[in-house]
Structure formats: C-alpha cells, structure tokens
C-alpha cells in the first residue's frame, strides 16, 4: 500500500465538460475566500469620500494612507500590536515546548496510567472553552491578575492538538538512534534535543506557526481578561473601537483590521508548504 500518488493522478474517468465545471466551481469558491479580504484592504486605502461611492471598485482611484495615519495618531496602535505579538509569542513558546515534552513522554516511555492520562489530555479538545471560562476568569480575578499577559497565556499553555501531533510523529522515530545516543552517555534531554528534534524540524516549525497564528488571532479568552485598553490585543481592541465609534469610520476600521490580518497572512504565505505537508503527513488514525 505504498503507492501514494498525488490525488490528481488517479486518472478517474471524466468528460471534459465535468472538468470545466469543476474549474469554474473551484474558481468561484476561491473568489469567495479571497474577495472579502481584498475588499477590506481596498477600503483601508480609499479616501473617505470614495468609500461610499456607488459601484464596486477594488483598486482605489486615489490610494491614500490617511486612515492608517489617523489611526496611528489617535490610538496606541504600536502598543496594541506589541501586546498581540507578545501574547502570541509567549503562547507559541509555551505550547510548543510542552507539546514536544509531553509528546515524547507519551510516545517513548512506559509508565503507570499512561493511556488514561493521554486520554485525559486528548479529551480536553472536546471541552468547549466557554464551559470552563467563567471559572478560570474567577480564578484570575481572585489572583488579582486580570489584564496581565500571564492571565491570557496561562490557561492555554498545554495544547491537546500539539501533544497529539508530536506523539504521532515521535512514535515512528527509529529506536536504534535513541539507544545509540543513550549508550554514548547522553542524558534524556540531550537525546531529545540533539538526536530526535532535528529530524522533526519542519513539523515543529509548522506546528509553531499554527500556534503563533492562533495566538495572534485568539478572541474568546482574551476578551474576558483584557479589559484595559492598554493591555488589549488587536482583535479585542478592534471590537471595542468598533462599538465606540458607532460604525461610520469604515476606513479606519478596515485599516485596523488589515493590521491584524496582514501579519498572519504573510506568515501563512511564507510557510504554507510546511503547513500543508504537516496536515498531509499526520493523518487522523491511531
């Protein structure tokens, strides 16, 4: 069962008409996927009077940075971007480290209750965050650490998806290489860092990028613990800004939205090959 052809190379019988129809459908879906984002970017560069002009126009007649400049002058944008970046980075570092360690432990060691403990970790994937958020909020409030980055990051330091992914990949690593390193006197942490991890570089990179994008994008939990504008991440601040200005400043709203979307999109474009192949290699069984 090793004949892993590309899915397009099975040569399933099809008429030219079928193929043309599929091209059209896929093209239309791609348009739906991309156009709202282009519309957002386009609006953020349109001068105010052009935003409400009749007809649909994607390329502004006279592109302007005025919305970005006004945004920058009226609000602590660098601070908000900094908050978002720090939260995303801290989340990524914690989730990646803990996933690698736990994945290695579950994949490579025998210990009492290993299977039940693994199920307890994996089961957290099925608990909606809204079920546990009120209690976690009360805890942060009791500890008096609302509006701190620690309060945002702490509850999500362990990530079931990451542990699952790492366990899958670490299970198939050749045992002889690990044994050889142990015989050479390397301790467990060195075996992991110097022997095992280098071969998983691209999987870990893809996972870390997904973690970063999720950390950058996250909304539900930070919306509870970040109530001071000074500490807010971009998605949280954006909602507050939208409600405060009452839905007339679309240029500035779209400029702020673009600031949040562009970094994630750039990361995705740079790393899409690794992300795709990680998805493809994981599979869902086992």
């Amino acid at each position, binding site marked *: 069962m090793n004949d892993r052809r590309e899915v397009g190379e099975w040569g399933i019988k099809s008429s030219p008409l079928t193929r043309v129809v599929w091209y059209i459908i896929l093209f239309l879906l791609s348009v739906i996927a991309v156009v709202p984002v282009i519309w957002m970017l386009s609006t953020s560069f349109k001068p105010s009077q052009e935003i409400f002009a009749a007809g649909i126009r994607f390329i502004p007649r006279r592109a302007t940075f005025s919305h970005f400049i006004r945004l920058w002058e009226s609000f602590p944008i660098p601070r908000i971007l900094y908050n978002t970046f720090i939260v995303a980075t801290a989340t990524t570092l914690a989730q990646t480290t803990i996933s690698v360690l736990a994945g290695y432990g579950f994949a490579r060691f025998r210990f009492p209750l290993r299977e039940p403990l693994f199920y307890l970790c994996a089961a957290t994937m099925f608990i909606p965050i809204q079920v*546990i958020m009120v209690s976690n909020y009360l805890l942060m409030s009791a500890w008096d650490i609302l509006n701190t980055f620690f309060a945002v990051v702490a509850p999500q330091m362990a990530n079931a998806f990451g542990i699952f992914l790492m366990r899958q990949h670490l299970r198939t690593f050749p045992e002889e290489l690990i044994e050889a390193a142990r015989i050479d006197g390397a301790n*467990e942490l060195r075996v992991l860092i110097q022997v095992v991890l280098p071969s998983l570089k691209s999987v870990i990179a893809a996972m870390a990028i997904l973690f970063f994008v999720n950390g950058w*994008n996250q909304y539900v939990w930070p919306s509870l613990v970040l109530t001071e504008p000074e500490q807010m991440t971009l998605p949280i601040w954006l909602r507050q800004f939208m409600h405060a200005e009452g839905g007339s400043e679309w240029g500035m709203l779209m400029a702020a939205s673009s600031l949040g979307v562009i970094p994630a999109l750039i990361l995705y474009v740079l790393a899409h090959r690794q992300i795709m192949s990680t998805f493809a290699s994981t599979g869902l069984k086992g």
Partner: protein
Amino acid sequence: MISKLSLKTRNSLKGLLLVSPALFFFAVFVYRPLIHTAILSFHDWNMVSPTRLFVGWDNYLEMLENPALGKALQNSALYAVWLIGIIILLPILTTAGMTYVHNRVRKMFRVTLFSPTVVSLGIASVMWLWVFNPIGGLLGTIWEELGLAPLNWLSSPKTALVAIVIIVGWKAFGYNMLLLLAGLGGISGEVIDACKVDGADGFGLWLYVILPLLSPTIFFILISTLSMATEYVFTPIHVLTGGGPVNASTNIVFEIWRQAFRWFRVGYSSAIAIAVFLIFFVLMIFQMWLSEKVVSYDER
C-alpha cells in the same frame, strides 16, 4: 540516588516527568474549572457577593422552563445544520473536484481556499460587517445592483443567524477541506487501479470506493465541526449581535457568557455550562467508539 532505582522505574519516572507540565496545566485550567463549575451550578451567586446560596437543582430546573434557553438550543441546532452543509458537504464536493484539476492549479486553489483559516474570527466579524453593509459594502452594493431591497443582514431577526453562518463557514471551510485532502492523499493509488480493473470508474468509484475509504476522516470532521459550530459562532455573536435581535442569533455557549457576564447569574450560567459539557462528553464517547471500530477495520 536516582541511579539506584531499577531501569524500569527510572524510565517510568522520566516519562512522567516529561508529561507532567502538560498534566499540570490541564489539571489547573481544564479539570479544576470543570469541577468548580459543577459545584457553582448548584448555587445562586452574583459574582461579587461574599455568600453563595445553595439551591440544589433549581438552576437545572430553570433551564427546562426558560424560553430564551430553548431558543438558544434551537439556534445551536440550526447553526449545526447549516455548518454541516457549508463546512462538511461542500468541502467533500470540493475535494472531489480537486482531483479533476491540473496539479499546479490544485495547489493554487488549495492555498487560496485555506487562506481564510488564518484570519482572526474577531477581525473577520468586523470585516464581514462591512461586506454586509447596505451602503457601500460589497454585498450590499451587489444586492442593490441586483435590484433587491436593502437588507441589514445582522440587525434583522430573519437573517442574523444566516449572516453569522456565512462568517463562520467562510472561516472554517478551508480547514476541513485540507483534512479531507490529507485523507484522500492517504488512499493508495493501487486500490483505485484495482477497482478500475474491476470496472468501477467515474461516479461509482467515488460513491462505492473512495467515500467509504474516506469515512474515518469524514467522521472525525463531523464531530469536530459540531464543536466548531458551537464554539466558533460565539465570536461573531459577541462582536456583532450580542445574541440579538431578540435572541435571533444567540446560541447555547453564548448564553453561558451572557448569564455570567451580563446578568451576573453565575450559578445558572454554570448549569448551562455543565449541560453543554455533558452533550460534548457524549459526542466524545461516540467519536472514541467510532474510531475504535475504524481501527479494528484497518487491522483486519
């Protein structure tokens, strides 16, 4: 001292040590709140008062009688049905379509169709609000050009839920598609060839061979979509509609938030949370039972 223990015990300790950070954080921030919420669900408490009143099953009984919660449950089911269509059936069709296009074009489509997945749902909500806007918005303008009456998608009780479905569907579509494509990639070309020798081709090959082979992936995304359909819609509701107009767009997990942070009814909110947890617990057991069946099928 450690070196005096047997090799087996040492290995056990190392393993436990490696998994302990994960266990610690899950214990403190997932399982502790679960128990805490269960305890709170039997109390009446407004989040600030120093005393909590034990009320037994009252909060649960109120859930059965409260019409707003009935509406929320009904909406949750509607969201699930819509989203199963948009982010399961449609991706299944698209992945099938993907096998008919040229390699390079497929890779391009894959990248564009997945791209909304990396956009923050909070930001996507604001972005779509502008797309929906009757004056100057993209969809609003198209609507007008088509000669239709202006429609305020998010503030009309008839369309608010659908508008939120569109936002979440747009965001989550590509994720399921990628999982399905990965599932397709795991099917051996030899199997396809063998079926063609036996005379199956075209639509029949899809229906009787490829779809059944893909069923583990489909079951997995079915369960994860049910949880997405519940969890994801929270964000556009929170950003845009606040559950309204007149509860038209609220769902079951938004009620958890609303009862706790709007009306400060922590006990009642906790009872809803426990009910949601139990629903997902049953789903999880079902998923585990299914995947067990699939595993034994593979080993045969």
